[in-house]
């Protein structure tokens, strides 16, 4: 009687066919195959986008100064990326983004916990948080200038106002969805107030917190792009200012260069969040079924 080694979970495999990567047994082999599995779709997607772009370009539907060719854009990007100004702008903007984001995380966490914790506070400002979130950054400019004049602090202020609501909302909704059973365990273990938060509620909230951080980052970055128009210093271009400049000049390749740059930064940052998320999920036993 033949002993067959079967593929795992045959019944489910119909669904998961697309997700299958070839089984390899060595450790290095597994690493390589995982790398490959993570890479080829990106390469393919990129190729498709560029291919489509090239086709549209060739169709002549739009003039080249409206929609430049991929090659022209690439040349512009490569040439521009060779200038120090490009990198300085990225550094300046990243510094602001990280400072603002760190500040937002601190404020947002405290605010989120406070609102989730105290019913009257939630009744008072819970809904306001979402309201604040919908306020366009530019509406904060007058207030930012009033409070901080034309300074880095004014930019940070706009960034923080943009990102805090998301982070707070992430924590609030996480806390709201902590299974009561866990809170009961915490109470029985004798945890009170801070301890309960430290050992039960915050860890349980982590997934929602991370997704709040992700949204918060997006808001922070967008607010920053607007906020950087508040303080424009000659010779110290920031992404927001230079991007706006490219737009003013109707310089399509330069605009696309900045779009690509922002996307790449966004993708890199997302990778960080993704990593955190995967860590949480695998330690919680949530991705065992892949």
């Amino acid at each position, binding site marked *: 009687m033949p002993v067959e*080694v079967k593929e795992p979970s045959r019944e489910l495999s119909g669904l998961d066919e697309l997700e299958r990567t070839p089984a390899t047994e060595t450790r290095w082999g597994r690493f390589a195959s995982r790398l490959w599995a993570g890479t080829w779709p990106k390469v393919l997607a990129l190729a498709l986008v560029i291919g489509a772009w090239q086709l549209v370009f060739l169709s002549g539907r739009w003039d080249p100064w409206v929609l430049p060719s991929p090659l022209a854009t690439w040349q512009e990007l490569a040439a521009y990326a060779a200038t120090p100004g490009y990198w300085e702008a990225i550094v300046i903007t990243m510094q602001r983004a990280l400072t603002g984001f760190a500040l937002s995380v601190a404020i947002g966490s405290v605010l989120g916990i406070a609102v989730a914790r105290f019913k009257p506070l939630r009744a008072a400002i819970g809904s306001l948080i979402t309201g604040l979130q919908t306020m366009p950054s530019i509406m904060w400019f007058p207030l930012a200038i009033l409070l901080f004049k034309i300074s880095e602090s004014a930019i940070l202020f706009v960034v923080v106002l943009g990102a805090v609501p998301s982070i707070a909302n992430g924590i609030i909704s996480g806390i709201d969805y902590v299974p009561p059973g866990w809170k009961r365990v915490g109470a029985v273990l004798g945890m009170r107030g801070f301890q309960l938060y430290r050992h039960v509620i915050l860890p349980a909230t982590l997934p929602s917190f991370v997704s709040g951080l992700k949204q918060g980052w997006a808001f922070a970055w967008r607010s920053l792009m607007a906020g950087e128009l508040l303080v424009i210093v000659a010779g110290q271009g920031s992404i927001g200012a230079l991007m706006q400049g490219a737009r003013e000049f109707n310089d399509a390749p330069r605009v696309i260069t900045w779009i690509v740059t922002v996307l790449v930064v966004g993708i890199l940052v997302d990778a960080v969040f993704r990593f955190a998320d995967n860590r949480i999920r695998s330690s919680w036993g949530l991705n065992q079924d892949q």
Partner: protein
Amino acid sequence: MSLTRGAPRADAARAGAVVLTDVVKRYGRGPGAVTALDGVSLDVAPGSFTCLLGASGCGKSTLLSLVAGLDGLTSGSIDDVERPVAMMFQESALFPWLTVAGNVELALRVKGVGRAERRRRAAELLDTVRLSGFADKRPHELSGGMRQRVALARALAQDASVLLMDEPFGALDAMTRDLLHDELERIWRERGLTVLFVTHNVREAVRLGDRVVLLSSRPGRVLHEYDVDLERPRRIDSTPVANLAAEITDALREEVSRHAG
């Protein structure tokens, strides 16, 4: 009452509703890997009632989920299973967004049963598990034992030919358990089900099973098989059941103490 100490079965002439051949299941990779099952061969005849016994952590739940096709085998094969099978999990795993009746009806809904029929069948099944008054409650409003009974009703609603049950009556008092034994036996007979039943209660195993399979711990292997030829209906507190249970308990005790030693 006759008793067959199960020597490893001949490979020939295997046919059944569930046929496991040299099933190996390892969790994880590298040095942290755990071998939950190591070469389990088991042949479950259609329409039979098989009880699995074994120490905590010996791989019983693992075996059921392999049969259900929920996890992948490391090696070996599982054949002849008509899927989907019905399964009752060790944790009741009810869906919090559905009412009790809704949870039961879901099994029917997936099969395309109409609304009125669904409602009728769910009510019937909830009655079977003595929860008629609780159709509109939410799972979080039930006690642990009640939840387990809802999960039983859901599994029965599936109406599959193979029924896998993982400690289904663990959280029930003796009386409710007796009642449900009777019900389960009745349904098994009427529908001609093939049942694989995990329990820690040896008497329960003898009360219900045609056969009792003893698994060893780490790695899980089939240690013994007992055929239970007692006449049905059996009573859990009858002497024949108690006697056979005592014998199996001794074997189990020996195995556990060997392992612990």
